[in-house]
């Protein structure tokens, strides 16, 4: 992926960084690029911590403890520790990859922070982990709306599924989405499944296809991904005018990673 020279990796206190760094290592092997690590401290959490009624349910304390009082100092300390740990992992991996890199810690509204930091980049990678059986950071769907950059939501762990699934018409083959999808497939040595909106010729059946009308239906998309079991689902913005409506559901329920181009 020689044409991408600047990458932003967005992390927060719930992430380990492993998934995002695995994907980066896959894409930037033998490449020259600048990578910025952004550790986001959600200002909403800081604001809550300043309130006298702030209580926190710690997952590590379950099932023996009730919610405990929450203070700004506790939150700051937890963020600092997590940021230091992620910075260390980040430095180690990127040094090994011989990529120029920097690591920043910023506090604010997450989407706004990421959009601001991504202004000079060509790809945004956001890592999302599972907590208590539920994948969080679903609120980041706004990110895909507020930037035209490719945004890659990486699930941790990355290496699940058996293919790269691109949903888009044949005309899209020359687009960035198709190129990126092909790049992922080649680098990860996985087959690339291209799902069109028109039925394939009989000679290619039983190839999958998804009518254009169903692209606006999140359940149809989820059923298709369950069927195809991809490692990465690639959705070109051009083919999904209602993407903003789909994303909240997709980010909550999709089992694979998602690339919006």
């Amino acid at each position, binding site marked *: 992926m020689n044409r991408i020279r600047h990458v932003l990796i967005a992390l927060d206190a719930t992430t380990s960084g492993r998934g995002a760094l695995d994907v980066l290592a896959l894409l930037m092997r033998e490449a020259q690029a600048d990578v910025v690590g952004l550790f986001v401290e959600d200002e909403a959490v800081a604001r809550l911590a300043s309130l006298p009624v702030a209580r926190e*349910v710690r*997952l590590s304390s*379950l099932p023996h403890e009730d919610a405990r009082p929450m203070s700004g100092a506790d939150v700051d300390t937890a963020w600092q520790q997590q940021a230091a740990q992620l910075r260390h992992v980040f430095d180690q991996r990127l040094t090994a990859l011989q990529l120029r890199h920097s690591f920043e810690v910023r506090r604010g509204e997450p989407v706004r922070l990421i959009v601001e930091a991504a202004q000079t980049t060509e790809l945004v990678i956001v890592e999302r982990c599972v907590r208590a*059986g539920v994948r*969080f950071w679903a609120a980041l769907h706004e990110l895909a709306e507020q930037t035209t950059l490719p945004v890659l939501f990486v699930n941790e762990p990355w290496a699940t599924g058996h293919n790269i699934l691109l949903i888009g018409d044949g005309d899209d083959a020359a687009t960035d989405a198709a190129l990126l999808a092909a790049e992922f497939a080649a680098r990860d040595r996985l087959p690339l499944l291209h799902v069109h909106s028109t039925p394939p010729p009989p000679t290619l059946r039983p190839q999958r296809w998804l009518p254009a009308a169903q692209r606006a239906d999140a359940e149809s998309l989820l059923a298709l991904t369950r069927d195809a079991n991809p490692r990465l689902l690639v959705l070109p913005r051009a083919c999904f005018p209602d993407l903003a409506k789909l994303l909240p559901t997709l980010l909550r329920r999709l089992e694979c990673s998602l690339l919006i181009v």
Partner: protein
Amino acid sequence: MHRRLAADEVFRRCDPAGFEFTDTRALEPLLELPGHARATEALRFGARIRSRGYNLYALGSSRVDMHDVVQRVMGAEAAARVEPQDCCYVNRFRGGSRPRAITLPTGEGIRFRNDLDGFAGEIGPMLTGFVQEQDFRTRSQALTDALQNAQRQALEGLQERAHGMGLTMLQTPQGFAFAPMHEGKVMEREAFEALPGEQREAIGHNIDAMNAELIEALQEFPARHQEMLRAQKVLLREAAAQQVNVALRPLRKRYQAYPDVLAFLDDIEHDVTDNVEAIMELSAEGAQQNGQMRERFYSRYRVNLIVDNTGATGDPVVYESNPTVDNLTGRVEHRSEMGNLVTDFSLIRAGALHRANGGYLLLDAERLFQRPFAWEALKRALLDERIQIESVSHQLSIGFTVTLDPDPVPLRLKVILLGSRLLYYLLCDADPDFALLFKIAADFEDTLDRSDGAELTYARLLTTLSRREELLPLDRTAVARVIEHGSRLVADQDKLILHTRTITDLLIQADHLAREATAPLIEAAHVEAAVAGQVRRLDRVRGEVHERIIDGIVRVETSGAVIGQVNGLAVLGIGDFSFGQPARITATVRAGRGEVIDIEREAKLGGNIHSKAMMIVASFIGSRFGAMAALSLNASLVFEQSYGGIEGDSATLAEVAALLSALAALPVRQSLAITGSMDQRGQAQAIGGVNEKIEGFHDICQARGLTGDQGVVIPSANARHLMLRADVRAAVAAGQFAIHCVDTIDDALALLLGTDAGSVDADGGYPADSVNGRALASIRRFAAFAREQRDGLARKEKE
């Protein structure tokens, strides 16, 4: 009467001119060794009886020949039948220490192994593939989705309820928290503090309530997750059972005639179902680096084919040259894992009993008895009719490793022990099981009768052996010389040795000499030189012994005459070489109580047979003179300058001659030596080693100079055993050395003492000048002396 033998009587020549061939190239080799018809018949008889206990013992003195004949006969019998079975061990999953033994018809074993190799290689990918199929994934995903939906709905429900209370749920660095909202954002502290106290308190209560609900919801998540995992496990097991059943269906059909195989396949089905998670884990992409671990796991479904008779054209004929317990009954090997010795069914190794099962097993009896516990293990297998792999170390309680107790394998074979006659007789006498298990004896001949036809057969035998060893052909003079040497080796003019190893060694050495001389054929001279070389390499001791005699260190007279002293002849054996040694036997007589004292026995140097011979001497003297006079004498006999044990009865004639010489006061000719056994009536009897004895005395006489008066006295029965050396034959032909045959002790006395022994006359006595007459006179003198002694003593007691 004695008879002096002519030169042509002391050796049976083989005339090369009697052969129609010029060399062995013109002869056809033999297809089988001659002279073993009796043993061959016994072997065939034993081989064809299928009943229990009809194992065989081949007894003889040539192991090589026995081995050849037994291999040939058993090979022919085995070729007539094809009943061997393949044998394998497989895992017994729920009784891991007792691997299951399975026997299959020939050729089925390797097919079974290949089938299970295929299964072991395919089951992982097959299950993985099935799990990845849409139907299974949909069912499995449905379980996951159900859980995630439930969890998501629970949390989203909480979020909705929170929104209804003006709260929102946030992710914190370590968990979750509910925050009060104001204008779409988390409330600022200032705004919160500006709220009335009741409102702040209400927000606090709401947050506490939501936290309590959140905790309750989160506490249910692990249990739900476990339930989902259990459901997925059940789903996976059902799928595995279905798939393995499908995979095993063709195998069950193919092996439906073999219950053991079917039981094993049932075991596999259960094991795959029980271990499906492990199989999936090993088959996962990420586990590719664990190839060794995966291979070890799947080896549980493989087959350890320990006996494969594929391609066998008959029953197996197996020779085990090292019959240890392990090599007979098989063994369980171990491998080192993390410093521990471990084992499993795949490390079971076959023994000779497994390989020979259904056929014939050949064992060297002596070697069998030299291996600890081997005889007991063999007997147990034959008596129980099954092969049980046993560890000697565990039998002795000195094993410290985990081992196995494999299923026994049914045994049906014939064992042929090859051993000596002595061992056979010992076993018959000492081990009752032996007679029960080895009912057939195949007794091998050591010699072949030497007729004209046999000489031609022998020539063909030489042809066979020389071609087998890729030696030069023999011309007919060499054949004749080997035949003569063959008679010499068995010391019988009418026999030929049958030990092919001995003959082959001679041929190899003659071939070497012929090739050194660049001769195209082996000739008589090469054979002669080879025989001489064999003797020369071994005769150092003989040279030393003879040198001491010639130097006078050991006294042996070869001229003159001495009373009570006779030249006896002994044979010393050193390894494969034996030679004759003259020895002085002397006798003394004195007044006594009629005892013949054997000094060798008194000194505990005499063997049992020698002692028996001395009793025969005493009995003979008693029977010859006891009716005519009281035997009031004691006689002593000794082998002079003998410092080792004396055994045998071949000096009986010499001892009687020495004793009668002493009694009759008649000197014995020292130019003669005598050998021969004797019965109580004075009849001469044959002895062994006659050629070596004669040659031994001849060598001493020759060293001192042959006078024409010298010679050896032998029993007439030994005349046919004479195959004397060429130089001795030459001396006999020149009249310089004589071989005298005698039938009785009286014949020998006439020769040795130069006086007729004398026969009982009409008066019941012997002629006064005869040996017996003079001896009787001496005995009467001793009796009179003894009587006088007794009378004098009686008078003294009266006085």
